[in-house]
């Protein structure tokens, strides 16, 4: 049994290629059933997101046959000339395939390292494959392992802890000043998209009081109604500034809407409690020297973007720690896979030996005459002893090979074959004796 993974992602292929190869949700069941033909490919899963299209498959045959089959499948489904995407395809086998799957689930292969959506997408792909009936015991082992390593990465490294978007960085900064945003008052100046997004973030973290001010009164009132906020005219800003703990400014114009004297005048009324100002407008609409005032913290769009970059840097550092966790999980998973592979063979082999021994016993029982319970027990011990001594070297060898990852396919098939042959002969002899 071999695991192969063929696919492309945001790093190997541009969006024009990715979008043409992507699978729509509604075509997935049919595509999955087409992919998994039961002979070349016995289990399959398709992960199709905006950043990647990947086919994960399990095959009983050699890997290149399966890879060929997947390529043919992509070609058939997409009617794309192969050279349009061929160069972008990566192919992973066994250990590498498992590692890639784990890295994807743990968001180590994502465009934004550590972004949390990908795990949900992998789970979705798994659920769809289960629904289409293309998941067998191998993928049933593999995918839950991928989810658990993703969870470990999330809890044991800081890969997903820091904000990497401008609006979430603004919230993080607010938390570094106020700790708890509950009960804080936010003043929104302007009604841009970014400002609205930031306000949404803040409201989600517990901000209750919201003041909204805009050049056009209607837009302010419209937003105010949406957020259950208070609308203010732009001219009234200096008066209401003292009420605000957090000010988000995203407004157009030529003159500063908040000048240094305004802010300086508001501070005594705030009893010098910190005031957090975010100016995401370009050109800047809060006088930059306001940031020099005591207990006033002013950030512009560049400052926020600088934090975003620093956090991405930190995520890369944490990702290196996550790779260690992934490597460990890959080895554990491969060991489980091998155990899963040899387990049934060993069991069948032993069962077969027992069947032979006991059927022979039954055949010769009539020559033995009536047996006492002690004799009966001695006979069982005799047979079990012979079976164990006979089977032990082969079973021990297989267990060891499974532990060390050196199972040779011919050994496995020999034992399987042996079981089958005996079974066949048994059937023959029983039918002829009747």
């Amino acid at each position, binding site marked *: 049994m071999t695991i192969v993974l063929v696919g492309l992602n945001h790093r190997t292929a541009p969006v024009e290629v990715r979008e043409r190869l992507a699978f729509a949700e509604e075509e997935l069941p049919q595509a999955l059933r087409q992919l998994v033909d039961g002979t070349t490919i016995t289990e399959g899963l398709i992960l199709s997101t905006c950043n990647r299209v990947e086919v994960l498959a399990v095959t009983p045959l050699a890997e290149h046959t399966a890879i060929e089959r997947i390529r043919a499948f992509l070609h058939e489904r997409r009617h794309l000339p192969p050279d349009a995407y061929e160069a972008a395809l990566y192919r992973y086998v066994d250990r590498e395939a498992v590692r890639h799957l784990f890295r994807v689930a743990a968001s180590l292969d994502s465009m934004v390292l550590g972004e949390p959506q990908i795990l949900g997408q992998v789970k979705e792909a798994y659920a769809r494959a289960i629904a289409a009936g293309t998941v067998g015991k191998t993928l049933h082992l593999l995918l839950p392992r991928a989810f658990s390593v993703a969870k470990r990465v999330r809890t044991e490294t*800081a890969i997903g*802890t*820091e904000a990497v978007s401008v609006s979430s960085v603004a919230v993080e*900064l607010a*938390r*570094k*000043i*106020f*700790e*708890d945003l509950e009960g804080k008052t936010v003043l929104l100046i302007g009604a841009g998209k970014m400002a609205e997004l930031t306000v949404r973030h803040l409201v989600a973290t517990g901000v209750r009081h919201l003041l909204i001010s805009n050049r056009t009164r209607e837009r302010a009132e419209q937003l105010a109604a949406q957020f259950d906020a208070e609308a203010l005219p732009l001219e009234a800003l200096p008066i209401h500034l003292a009420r605000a703990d957090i000010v988000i400014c995203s407004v157009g114009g030529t003159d500063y809407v908040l000048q240094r004297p305004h802010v300086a005048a508001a501070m005594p009324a705030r*009893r*010098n*409690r*910190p005031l957090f100002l975010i100016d995401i407008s370009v050109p800047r609409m809060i006088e930059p020297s306001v*940031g020099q005032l*005591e*207990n006033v*913290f002013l*950030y512009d769009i560049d*400052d926020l973007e*600088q*934090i975003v970059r*620093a956090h991405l840097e*930190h995520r890369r550092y944490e990702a290196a720690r996550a790779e260690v966790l992934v490597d460990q999980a890959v080895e554990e998973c491969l060991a489980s896979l091998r155990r899963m592979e040899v387990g049934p063979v060993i069991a069948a082999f032993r069962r077969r030996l027992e069947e032979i021994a006991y059927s022979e016993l039954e055949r010769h029982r009539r020559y033995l005459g009536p047996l006492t319970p002690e004799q009966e027990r001695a006979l069982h011990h005799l047979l079990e002893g012979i079976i164990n001594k006979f089977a032990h070297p082969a079973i021990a060898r297989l267990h060891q090979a499974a532990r060390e990852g050196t199972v040779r396919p011919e050994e496995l098939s020999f034992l399987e074959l042996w079981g089958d042959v005996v079974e066949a002969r048994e059937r023959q002899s029983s039918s002829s004796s009747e």
Partner: protein
Amino acid sequence: MDRTDLPLLGALIAYLLAFLQVVVSFWWGEARLRRWLVRLSLGAGLSMHTFWLGRAAMQFGHVPIISTQEVFALLAWAIAVYYLLLRRTHRRADVLGLFALPIIALFVLVALVSTGFKLLPEELEGLLRMPALPLHIGFMMLAYAGFLLAFLAALMYLLQERELKRKRFGLIYRYFPSLSACEALGHRSLLFGFLMLTLGIGTGIILLHRSDPVFWRGDPIIVLAFITWLFYLVVVHYRLAAGWRGRRAAMLLIVGFLATAVTFVSARLFGHIL
């Protein structure tokens, strides 16, 4: 150091372990297990520490406050007690341990290596046996501990504030508590320290009243203590009544602590008991 100091050595090791755990949490984020380990190490250290102090008190029949060794051991003990208390009441007190625990450990170390020798003037005997003395000394030590942690919290406030103002977001930004958490830790410690100082001075007045005026007539230390108290009274008043916060309030905590430290050190230098 001799065999009787073994509990103190044990306490030192336990405090260092607690410090190590805090450093690890600082780097790797605080897990519940680590939080619990810090509490365990602190508790173990404090038990051994208390045992050592108790035995010293029994042995000499008075508060262990005479030799250098005893003074440092007692100070470290008060800081450890207050730090543990603060950890139980404020969830961001853990980072303070980054500074408080090395100080505790350092004081215990100084106690371990310094002499237990004490010069005890006969006139002091009476004072040492007064029942109000342990109370007075306990209050004063806890006051110092409170002011020390208020000082450390203010220091963290200023460091975090500088980071936020300069927009250089490094380790301090990432791992130190928010401004308002530093503020709350400092505020709480200040109030605690001030309460203890008030009680300490109160019991001190009783002691002065009952003891031979020969010791304390014209003692600059008593004047200094009152000045310290007045200073903190003003700070507490402005914080409670006028809601003073922010950078300057943090700086006042730092100045106040330094003044207290001067009072204390000079008290020791001139051989007085405070």
